[in-house]
């Protein structure tokens, strides 16, 4: 009966729901008994997690938890088949026993692990590509809002950098270098088969910064993350895969497992380990007076002289106000997760709930997330399965303007207001200086908040059509409602003239996708064959509705309904894509592997004749350690060689209608509607394509106590999607074009070792390092990044700084000497030149895990070397008196040239000449290398005897700290900064909240 029903029901999604509703819990066979036990490693007696425990005849199974424990309902006369990666299999008869503890011995080969890849899973052994897998457990101790930031330093070749120290803010994420200028460089994120949006929907500006939509996902619900790096792994994702693909698998229940409850909680604090060094009031006054005198103006009228003489008072009379310590605080961190998972022989489930709250170290910035996760799989009969993954979350942020721009800028008000200037006017009202808001007003009254409601869901049906032929249909949606509000009260600069200013913006973004795949597997003799074909149809629509109100009765009324003057606006845009794809896998004898992938994509974004693009890849691998001549070498336990090549595409970041000539409305005059030319289209616009080759070697030594993965890669991106500058005499400043080429080449090395492993004590180490060389191979016209210190020029790498080169400060005159690069006898715009770039030469991480009896200890460093930062904050703070009472001055300014013979790089203070007016200047380019003690964790698992007494499975308590040590050369508080979420700007500091130092105490309980 079931069978007939599902056959007709399958393609109709609404019947899936009906099916869910009618799912009944199966009744167990009379002869089953509950069995539980612990699986340990022979010798070390260390519990082994993730061991498959299966009843041989009943064909039901589970796997062990992190304490090596399992529980299963099995027929009392069955045999347990116990298998684990890197261990020999064991068969253990049940014989009616309810407690079965088993020890298993390690084997030499670690390639048995199963890795999630695009549209499937493969054993690590059969991989021809470079795929890194990270278990969520390994990275969970870093108390940040999103999993992408937790990955920092964990995966070779993946460069991750937080733009600011504010939780939930944007992350700079690159897999194997920057491949694009305008089409985006973020990888494709796929969670349980759903292509999710990772572009911020934020519309109310926080001045350049943007929220990170990935923070909507609770890291605690994640089981593992696969990072697909090379073309063989990513080509199946075709036109969106050029920047790599991140596959996220969330936690699911286990069949035939009693309900398992996991509870985790932590509580902690965060603070800024270092802030900026500003001069005192008297020092500020001295500098300004010095500029006055050096400018040749009469000392009698210097600004800081006696008040009775009309001055601002003598330098030594100036007070000093420390606004930085007003704005930075010790923030609270708290996190609670609770999950229940389990299953019977037909159904498995995972239900998780979480709450996370993080106060930023910078006042008025908070992040809160409440999340709910529900995953269900149901076997309808022996051939048909259906299931669903659902994630619902609400992220609530209180924001502030933390980036560029004085108006309402909370960090700017603290960092840039000269320290000698008072907080209040003589009449007791709030004083405002130099275009900045009064900091106390901002701290008290900043009211910006946003709520993100996110649903990411998927339903699938799977049917075994023939013994080896499987059909799968999958329907997914990523829906995000991003609701922002700001109210600037009448004391703030933004709200004062307008008697209050409120903005509401509601963005709704929906990405829907449906995919159908057919897969076939066969193993005739020594041959092993896998085939996958599929198609996908998807669409995306974003609508934005916004309103603004001014002129409020008073500051108690904050909603636009109370405003006397209102304006509103709405917009909507979308795009669609259809795709077909396929994969062919073949191996002979488990030694020789070949794989072929292809995807065809058509997107509505491109010109009608250029809509289709095809992306193939081919990969080969040889598991040499299976050959007898290597198997005999004792030291070598694993040796595998891989090679692949393929083409992938990129279409992000460009407008939905970039191929067309468009006119825009909204250019009104005299309150009548007006229209203007908006865009010059390019009907030939098409994909950006990246050709990538990868050579890899996997080496295991000494029974895989040492395992090494090494990859060499080369990426060549052509037909760059580029806003090509046009002569503006055309009336347009740029046109979307396929122009330019970028290459990336480099290597990645990962080493993990088991240094000590015995019953009492284990110590494992993993280290990774990557090196990437990026070069713009072809670019007809240089392109400036949005902050003009960076320019893209053919022959140089992306994120290169383009500046006037300060050679030295003349010891005789104290004047800065700039390089006359074109040798025409004067300093002009032509003398700017490339001076370093913001990309690290080397980056990676080093992790050590130690376990002694119940204690566990881990220490993790991440590092990067060779990247430069343009410290524009210093340009403002070291302005040689040119900014007088309008900007704070930093301590480094005190190192200025004062008298003939002084050797310094800080020129003579003056408002004249080019000492302090030329910009951007190489003096502000600094080394951004750092080594950070990313996390440090000490945990203790309570003895089993104790925990069973209180009817729990295990209890672990721990303390963890982040960012407890930082080695840097950078003058600012933290080299991990960026002024903006604009992906083409990197390493540009305009005063950014530093990474917090944190300490947290937590407990993990499993029942």
């Amino acid at each position, binding site marked *: 009966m079931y069978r007939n029903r599902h056959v007709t029901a399958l393609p109709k999604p609404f019947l899936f729901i009906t099916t869910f509703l009618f799912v009944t819990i199966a009744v167990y066979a009379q002869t089953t008994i509950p069995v539980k036990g612990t699986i340990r490693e022979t010798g070390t007696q260390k519990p082994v997690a993730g061991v498959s425990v299966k009843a041989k005849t009943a064909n039901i199974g589970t796997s062990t938890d992190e304490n090596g424990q399992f529980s299963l309902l099995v027929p009392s006369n069955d045999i347990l088949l116990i298998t684990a990666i890197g261990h020999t299999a064991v068969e253990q008869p049940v014989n009616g026993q309810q407690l079965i503890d088993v020890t298993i011995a390690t084997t030499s080969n670690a390639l048995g692990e199963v890795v999630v890849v695009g549209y499937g899973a493969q054993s690590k052994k059969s991989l021809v590509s470079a795929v890194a897998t990270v278990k969520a457990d390994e990275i969970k101790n870093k108390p940040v809002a999103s999993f992408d930031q937790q990955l920092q330093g964990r995966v070779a070749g993946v460069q991750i950098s937080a733009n600011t120290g504010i939780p939930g803010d944007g992350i700079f994420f690159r897999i194997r270098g920057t491949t694009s200028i305008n089409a985006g460089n973020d990888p494709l994120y796929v969670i349980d088969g759903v292509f999710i949006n990772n572009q911020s929907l934020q519309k109310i500006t926080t001045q350049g910064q943007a929220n990170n939509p990935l923070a909507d996902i609770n890291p605690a619900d994640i089981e593992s993350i696969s990072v697909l790096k090379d073309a063989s792994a990513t080509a199946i994702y075709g036109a969106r895969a050029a920047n790599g693909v991140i596959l996220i698998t969330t936690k699911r229940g286990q069949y035939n497992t009693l309900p398992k409850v996991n509870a985790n909680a932590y509580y902690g604090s965060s603070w800024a380990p270092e802030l900026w060094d500003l001069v005192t009031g008297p020092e500020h006054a001295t500098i300004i007076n010095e500029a006055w005198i050096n400018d040749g103006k009469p000392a009698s009228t210097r600004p800081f002289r006696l008040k009775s003489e009309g001055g601002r008072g003598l330098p030594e009379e100036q007070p000093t106000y420390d606004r930085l310590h007003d704005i930075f605080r010790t923030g609270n961190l708290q996190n609670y997760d609770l999950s229940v998972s389990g299953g019977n022989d037909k159904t498995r489930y995972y239900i998780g709930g979480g709450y996370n709250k993080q106060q930023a170290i910078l006042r008025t910035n908070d992040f809160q997330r409440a999340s709910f996760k529900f995953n269900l799989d149901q076997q309808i009969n022996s051939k048909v399965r259906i299931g669903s993954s659902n994630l619902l979350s609400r992220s609530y942020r209180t924001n502030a303007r933390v980036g560029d721009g004085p108006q309402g800028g909370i960090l700017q008000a603290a960092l840039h207001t000269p320290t000698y200037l008072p907080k209040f006017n003589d009449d007791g009202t709030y004083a405002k200086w130099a275009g900045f808001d009064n900091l106390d007003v901002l701290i008290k009254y900043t009211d910006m908040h946003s709520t993100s409601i996110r649903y990411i869901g998927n339903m699938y049906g799977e049917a075994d059509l023939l013994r080896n032929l499987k059909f799968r249909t999958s329907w997914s949606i990523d829906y995000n409602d991003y609701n922002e509000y700001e109210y600037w009260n009448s004391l703030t600069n933004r709200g004062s003239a*307008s008697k209050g200013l409120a903005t509401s913006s509601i963005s709704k973004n929906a990405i829907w996708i449906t995919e159908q795949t057919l897969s076939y597997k066969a193993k005739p003799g020594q041959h092993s064959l896998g085939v996958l074909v599929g*198609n996908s149809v998807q669409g995306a629509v974003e609508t934005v509705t916004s309103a603004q109100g001014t002129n409020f009765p008073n500051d108690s009324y904050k909603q636009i309904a109370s405003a006397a003057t209102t304006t509103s606006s709405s917009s*909507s845009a979308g795009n669609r894509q259809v795709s077909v794809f396929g994969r062919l896998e073949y191996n002979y004898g488990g030694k020789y592997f070949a794989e072929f992938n292809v995807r065809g994509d058509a997107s509505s974004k491109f010109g009608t004749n250029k809509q289709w693009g095809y992306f193939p890849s081919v990969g080969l691998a040889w598991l040499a350690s299976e050959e007898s001549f290597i198997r005999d070498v004792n030291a070598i336990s694993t040796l595998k060689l891989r090679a692949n090549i393929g083409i992938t595409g990129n279409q992000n970041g460009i407008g939905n209608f970039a191929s067309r000539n468009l*006119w825009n409305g909204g250019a009104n005059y005299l309150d009548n509607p007006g229209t203007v030319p908006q865009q010059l*289209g390019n009907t030939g616009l098409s994909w950006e394509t990246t050709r990538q080759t990868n050579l890899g070697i996997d080496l295991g030594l000494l029974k895989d106590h040492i395992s090494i993965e090494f990859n060499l890669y080369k990426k060549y991106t052509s037909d760059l999607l580029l806003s090509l500058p046009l002569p503006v005499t055309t009336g347009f400043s740029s046109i979307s074009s396929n122009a330019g080429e970028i290459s990336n080449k480099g290597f990645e090395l990962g080493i993990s070792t088991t240094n000590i492993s015995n019953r009492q004590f284990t110590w494992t180490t993993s280290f990774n390092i990557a090196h990437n060389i990026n070069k713009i191979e072809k670019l007809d016209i240089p392109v400036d990044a949005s902050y*003009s210190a960076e320019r893209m020029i053919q022959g140089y790498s992306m994120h290169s700084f383009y500046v006037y080169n300060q050679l030295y400060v003349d010891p005789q005159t104290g004047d800065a000497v700039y390089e006359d690069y074109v040798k025409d006898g004067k300093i002009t715009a032509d003398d700017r030149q490339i001076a370093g770039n913001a990309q690290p030469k080397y980056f990676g991480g080093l992790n050590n895990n130690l376990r002694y009896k119940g204690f566990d200890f881990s220490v993790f460093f991440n590092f990067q070397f060779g990247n430069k930062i343009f410290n524009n904050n210093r340009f403002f703070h070291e302005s040689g008196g040119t900014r007088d009472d309008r900007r704070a001055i930093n301590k480094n300014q005190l190192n200025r040239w004062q008298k003939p013979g002084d050797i310094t790089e800080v020129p003579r203070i003056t408002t004249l000449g080019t000492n302090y007016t030329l910009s951007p200047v190489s003096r502000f380019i600094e080394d951004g290398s750092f080594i950070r003690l990313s996390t440090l964790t000490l945990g203790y698992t309570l003895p089993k005897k104790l925990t069973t007494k209180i009817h729990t499975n295990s209890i672990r308590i721990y303390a963890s700290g982040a960012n407890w040590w930082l080695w840097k050369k950078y003058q600012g508080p933290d080299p991990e900064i960026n002024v903006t979420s604009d992906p083409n700007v990197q390493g540009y500091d305009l005063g950014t909240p530093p990474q917090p130092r944190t300490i947290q105490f937590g407990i993990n309980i499993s029942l």
Partner: protein
Amino acid sequence: MTRYLYLYLAFFLLTTSCRKFLNVQPQQQVDASVAITDAVSAEAAVNGLYNRLGSDGYYGSNFISLSYLMGGDIQWTGSQSAPSQIAARALTADNSNIASAWMAIYRTILSANYIIDIVPRLTDPLLTEAKKNQYQGEAYFIRALAYFDLARAWGGVQLITSPTYSKTDQEGIRRSSLAETYAQVLSDLDKAEALLPATVNRNKATQKTVWALKARFYLYQQDWVKAESYASKIIDDAANYKLLKPYNAFFANNVTATAESVFELAYSTSFKNGHYNWWLPPALGGRREWAPNNNLVTLLNDPAIGGNRNSLIAQTAPPGNLWYGKLYYRNPTGTDPAYLMRVAELYLIRSEARVKQTKLTQALTDLNAVRDRAGLSPATAATPEAILLAIENERRFEFAFEADRWFNLVRTGRVSSVLNISDPNKFVFPIPISEIIADKYLDPNLGY
């Protein structure tokens, strides 16, 4: 079994053969081919043209600021290096404010070119001949003003007189000489004069607006007779154009389009004047990044020099005591007009034109009309040189926050002695280096 395969196949075909599915249309924009098709869309395009003229990069603030910052009386208090370079008259070719003015002007020209190209060909019966003429006339006028501004700021420029439909449309055009550029201005002004009605509209171009710009044009051309006669055409129209008393009567108390204005751009909450919060101090919700410098404050406050034009400035409460400009103050509505041509300018144009024709008494009458309005006693100058200097000084305070001082000093050749600039190459702005790079047919201005 076969049912599965059919289903799959059907799905496959359905989704892959879907050209229609991929045909997504924009909802917020329209294709350029249907942008101007009838009376309604032509009118919208003309509105868009005024919007371009009043955009932030052009008369909405930036272009005006180039003139007053270069003029030496205004300081820049903000952090950006581009305006501080301008205030220090130490321009480099990568100055972003110069580049954005250049861009805003050529964008305005593009809109005008579209109207000039398409409107004559429209066949909508609702679009009367009078309307057609008016729209084209407005486009010719604005294009004339745009090339006039390019010429006085950068010298001879590339003359673009047709719309851009593809990226190669304007390729290969080199810079015209200064004379050729001014010839283009005159040709456009003549066309506009013939097409526009002789009505009074202070916010849009009419024949009278053309006359006023012609007066200024001939002043720059040193054609004193014509400058005088075109200025007279406006001044003599006393029913419509007159000097208002006191000085601030043309801008204070939220007035717009007063009898003082020959041409001002109107702003509204949906089209804000970019200037509106840059001059006010933080205490009044502004940024005060442009502010009168000490020298100008002193002069404006001198009753014998500034007269009642001290109403242009005010000071904040202690301990700040910051002087700020008050010409642009309508925060948050942003409805401050941009003053492009006021009748005061026509008096000073005519005064100068008359000095050059040695009609000194008449010249003094015009000058004193402006002085009288500012609450000043008649000028004491007697020689032509002294009167010219008096006119120059009058302009300095009369148009302190408008687009005049720099261009006027360059025009009269006095810029080297007044602002101490010895290199004549620096009398024009640099051609933006980004444009030099993007366009191989564009030659830079010497000296940058």
